[in-house]
């Protein structure tokens, strides 16, 4: 019974310490589970959540094609132009754009789009871009929490349950918006004097800002926009999101909606993009990683270990639903601060199902999913290694000559994460009616 747990733990440790590539390790774990007879091949294949894999692949295709149309870059540059060089507006527009884009794109893509423009603008103005970059990393993770497709933990939860796209937004917007207001307010207040003072009465600073905005425009949008291509991308994204939001009426799986959108965009943009090239940009290794992970978790579930874990968590809560919610939220948060939250959430999904089976239905058991989502997504903000977007954001900043150390990031990340988890706690307790 404990062999699959040992295999999973060893593989997880090897992933954490980056001994080998995470996809190779997850595949190794899956293969070991089959070879050692813990699960047979058919059960292993059946445990792969193909809904999730197809959803991920389709969203990757949609994002890759749209990225080629330069729509996202145009949006970022547009924000810089609207700000007219006002530091507070730059900050607010950039973090809100980050949060908005992250709720529909993966967080890493958002960070790759936002950080270079931010560094070019803010550093060029002679200001320290660190608070801006840290805030963007933060809001990429916060924004990603809002939707089913925004962050891998939500994709995993959405793929394993019948919770709709709209229900994600309906249930998560309060802690996401609440945290956004609180965190942006705190960062603005902390750095008002040094970073965000208005420059509207200073001709030199205004002139410099406008020069930089012009430079950013030609640097990042040098080739100009292919308006037809952009229009096609916007059209498909719009109808895909509309279909996500009306999923309950359409009675379609999110994966089917996303795949339809991707195929439609591939057809419409056949003149602008090379199919083979676009296909090669899909992160197949990530999809394989997910598949391996599903097999490993399926094996653990198969031998009944996760039932024991469900019982243990339920018993530890001492019959208090509030305590149970707080345990799921804060344990998810604490683990996600230092570990990759994807294996953790994959493991926790069957555990949550187990806990829910023991709960009184009048207690609103669905809240456990939101506790897991908020904990896993917000928790990743605490440290540099908490989420992929953090690592990529710090690396991109370093390439542009802005060094943010582990401790430097954590000085902001940890307290602000505790605040967002506290906001989530209040929300969950309020929703549970306790």
């Amino acid at each position, binding site marked *: 019974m404990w062999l699959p747990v040992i295999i999973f733990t060893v593989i997880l440790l090897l992933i954490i310490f980056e001994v080998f590539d995470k996809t190779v390790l997850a595949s190794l774990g899956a293969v070991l589970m089959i070879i050692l007879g813990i699960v047979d091949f058919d059960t292993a294949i059946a445990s792969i959540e193909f809904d999730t894999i197809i959803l991920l692949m389709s969203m990757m295709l949609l994002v890759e094609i749209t990225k080629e149309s330069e729509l996202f870059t145009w949006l970022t540059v547009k924000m810089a132009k609207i700000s007219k*060089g006002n530091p507070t507006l730059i900050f607010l527009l950039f973090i809100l754009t980050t949060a908005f884009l992250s709720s529909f794109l993966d967080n890493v893509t958002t960070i790759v789009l936002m950080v270079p423009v931010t560094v070019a603008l803010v550093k060029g103005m*002679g200001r320290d871009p660190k608070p801006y970059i840290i805030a963007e990393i933060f809001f990429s993770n916060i924004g990603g929490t809002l939707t089913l497709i925004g962050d891998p933990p939500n994709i995993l939860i959405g793929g394993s349950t019948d919770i709709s796209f709209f229900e994600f937004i309906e249930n998560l917007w309060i802690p996401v918006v609440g945290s956004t207001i609180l965190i942006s307010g705190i960062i603005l207040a902390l750095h008002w004097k040094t970073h965000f003072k208005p420059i509207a009465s200073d*001709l030199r600073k*205004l002139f*410099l*800002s*406008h020069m930089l905005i*012009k430079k950013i425009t030609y640097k990042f949008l040098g080739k100009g926009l292919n308006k037809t291509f952009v229009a096609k991308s916007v059209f498909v994204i719009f109808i895909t999101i509309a279909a996500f939001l009306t999923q309950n009426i359409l009675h379609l799986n999110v994966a089917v909606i996303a795949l339809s959108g991707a195929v439609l965009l591939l057809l419409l943009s056949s003149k602008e993009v090379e199919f083979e090239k676009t296909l090669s940009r899909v992160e197949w290794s990530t999809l394989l990683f997910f598949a391996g992970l599903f097999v490993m978790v399926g094996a653990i579930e198969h031998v009944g270990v996760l039932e024991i874990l469900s019982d243990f968590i339920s018993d530890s809560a001492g019959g208090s639903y509030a305590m149970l919610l707080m345990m799921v939220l804060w344990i998810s948060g604490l683990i996600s601060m230092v570990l990759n939250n994807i294996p953790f959430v994959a493991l926790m999904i069957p555990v949550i199902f187990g806990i829910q089976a023991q709960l009184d239905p009048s207690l609103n058991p669905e809240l456990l999913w939101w506790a897991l989502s908020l904990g896993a997504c917000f928790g990743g903000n605490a440290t540099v290694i908490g989420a992929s977007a953090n690592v990529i954001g710090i690396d991109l900043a370093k390439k542009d000559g802005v060094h943010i150390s582990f401790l430097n990031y954590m000085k902001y990340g940890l307290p602000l994460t505790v605040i967002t988890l506290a906001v989530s706690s209040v929300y969950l307790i309020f929703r549970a009616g306790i």
Partner: protein
Amino acid sequence: MTQTFDEQFSKLFREIEIDLGATSLSILVLESLYKAVQGLKGQDHHHFFEQFQELTQNIESTEPKYAIIIDSFYHILRLAYVEEVIHPEQGWPLGKKKFLEQLESMIKEKKEEKQKIVKQSEKINFSGKNILLYHHSGTVEAVLAAAKKKRKKFNVIVAEQDPDKTGETIAFLHNKKIPFRVVPSHTISHIMDEIDMLFMGALTLKSSNDFVMDTGSNGLVLQFDHAKKPIYVFISTKKFSLWKSEKRSEVFTHTSQRQLHEKAISFERIKFSHDRVEMDLFTKIITEEGIFTPEQLKKFYDERLEERIKLEKRIELLR
């Protein structure tokens, strides 16, 4: 992180000039200044005048100095001076409107400047000729593109210099379907008989009566002068450096230690930023104001310089 405005502007101007060229840089500067004045809040005219003087000082202190930008700033400074002295009672909203109108007309004029030079260049007959290009110049490219559009027949020989600059010239000629050949610049003497004329652009004209051009230009121009072949320069008068400059004081050198890749021989490699080329060596200078001989241009330049010095003195008195 604590860069001065001089340093910030120097870095930014240099980067944009490398990317887009000096003329586009000057248009971008004017457009940015327009937006900055438009967004400026809580001013009276005197406060604006003071701030604009500070900004002009920063613009005059960049390294390298951009005459084309300084010239634009002096146009605005002249207006600011008139407003400060003649209409001190006038409120800022009205003053701001005047500055914006002035900037708007300057941007328009600046965008038309190249076309004016192209118009003047129609007086130069280069049909059926072999033209040598060396200094990478957007103005010369505009002249050739216009001639090609008018179905003039001519051939171009590109003398190689910095690979990026030569590459851009080649890309331009290819895009415009202008027939061309490329030759290493140190072997020009072998095909001198085939070449009819040399077209050059220039970064600026100094008070020492030298044009500032890409490195290697001086040797090439001397070769053409020796062979008694016509040499034309295409330059806007807005690019003239209207201040007293020492001979070669603003040619920047870059020295670096290098190693030969196979044997470990370290040596010092000196690289210069520009060449200074005597104005007298050129046949004609084509500007938006007309076509000049070197003698005529000297006179024109001196008048402009005198005018600028007078304005500087008047503004100095107000400080």
